[in-house]
């Protein structure tokens, strides 16, 4: 029975690749997502709705579509990818970095929404108090707003991480299904679902995904609990 838990080196390397992609994904989107979240929570300007819906777009479309758009833009022959490739020698298409970008695009709206929610709940009275002490608005952001919205940012991170772990459509469309390079857990699982005897190996990978997610959840729960305590709120 427990044999199913003895994982092969190839399964472990798929796991490692998924983990790498998901971690780079959250690192990549963290700062931009928080900035966009802050802008959406606190500023009003012309074109805000547009920015808002642009951010949400990847969520609304079947993942193949963002994947295809990424190919058009960032493929080696793509509008932008051409220059990345020719000038900087960076190639996203068919590389794990491309997989990072694909899942980053899909996870971005989740991260933004959570952070935005948390930022909009921060008591402005505290920000004003900090300003009255002479803190520059940027200083206020880093010392007051950001720490107080930490629970929401952690929520965003875990959603983004999970989404990245599960990202399939955009990834396979943008970077294909290449062993040891772009074949993350979902792609490997999908491949197994396409063959008649693939149920068991697929199940093994599903278990690996769950374990990874469980680990991430446990870490994020601990962080969130701590963040809530830090701002004087308690879980129980």
């Amino acid at each position, binding site marked *: 029975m427990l044999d199913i838990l003895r994982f092969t080196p190839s399964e472990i390397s798929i796991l490692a690749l998924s983990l790498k992609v998901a971690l780079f994904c959250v690192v990549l989107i963290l700062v931009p997502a928080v900035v966009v979240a802050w802008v959406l929570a606190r500023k009003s300007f012309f074109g805000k709705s547009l920015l808002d819906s642009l951010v949400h777009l990847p969520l609304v479309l079947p993942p193949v579509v963002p994947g*295809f758009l990424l*190919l*058009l833009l960032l*493929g*080696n*022959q*793509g509008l932008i990818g051409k220059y990345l490739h020719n000038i900087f020698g960076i190639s996203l*298409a*068919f590389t794990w970095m491309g997989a990072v970008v694909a899942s980053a695009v899909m996870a971005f709206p989740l991260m933004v929404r959570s952070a935005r929610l948390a930022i909009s709940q921060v008591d402005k009275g505290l920000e004003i108090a900090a300003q009255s002490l002479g803190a520059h608005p940027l200083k206020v952001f880093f010392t007051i707003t950001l720490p107080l919205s930490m629970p929401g940012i952690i929520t965003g991170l875990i959603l983004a991480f999970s989404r990245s772990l599960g990202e399939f*459509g955009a990834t*396979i*469309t943008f970077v*294909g*299904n*290449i062993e040891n390079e772009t*074949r993350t857990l979902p792609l490997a699982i*999908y*491949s*197994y*679902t*396409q*063959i*008649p005897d*693939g149920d068991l190996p697929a199940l093994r990978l599903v278990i690996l995904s769950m374990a990874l997610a469980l680990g991430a959840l446990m870490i994020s729960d601990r962080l969130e609990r701590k963040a809530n305590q830090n701002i004087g709120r308690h879980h129980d």
Partner: protein
Amino acid sequence: QDKVTIFAAASLTNAITDIAAQYEKEQAVQIQTSFASSSTLAKQIEKGAPADIFISADTKWMSYLQDKTLLKADSRVNLLGNQLVLIAPKNKAFKVEMDKSFNIAGAFSGKLCTGELESVPVGIYAKQSLKNLNWWDTVKMRIVGTQDVRAALVFVERGECDAGIVYATDAKVSNKVEVLSAFPDTSHDLIVYPLALVKTASPAATGFYDYLKSEKAKAIFIKYGFTINLL
């Protein structure tokens, strides 16, 4: 009004849609279609999907259902055939010879796209052919697997891959790729699209099942590049 539900591999989307429309004009029957990958469809039928007719993109998934005796006895036929072709982006065509001595690796730069090699039918055929031609070892590191054959075609159309292996039907309709050569039929298992009636098929389904094998349907299949010689 009778309703007939057909589950067909996604690569047959156009052809089946056209044939269904034509049939509906002739008969007072409503044809309902569902297109997805063959594996998805087969598993759905296994779990009791209300399908009357199934066309798979490969023999495996049809056999999968047949082994579980979910098909109407003797209704399985090899409806269509297809060819495996090597393609390149329009302006990046290169010369190939379908020969073991040909240096395929040196003939193009960049990646070679096809369906995922272990699970997607077109990828499985491609791997067989590459092995048969002794090309496998030199190009295997450069192969990009995709979700389905259309995705492989897109990669080549966009110039992201300098070569691709797809079905003739796909290559035919794209004006952004060039067919360099067809793989010999002997280099891979025969490409067949089996058709069958599902065990629980309604009586009305037989009419459309027969129509799919008729000359009228044949014309449409041919229009989209399928071969019928297997019938």
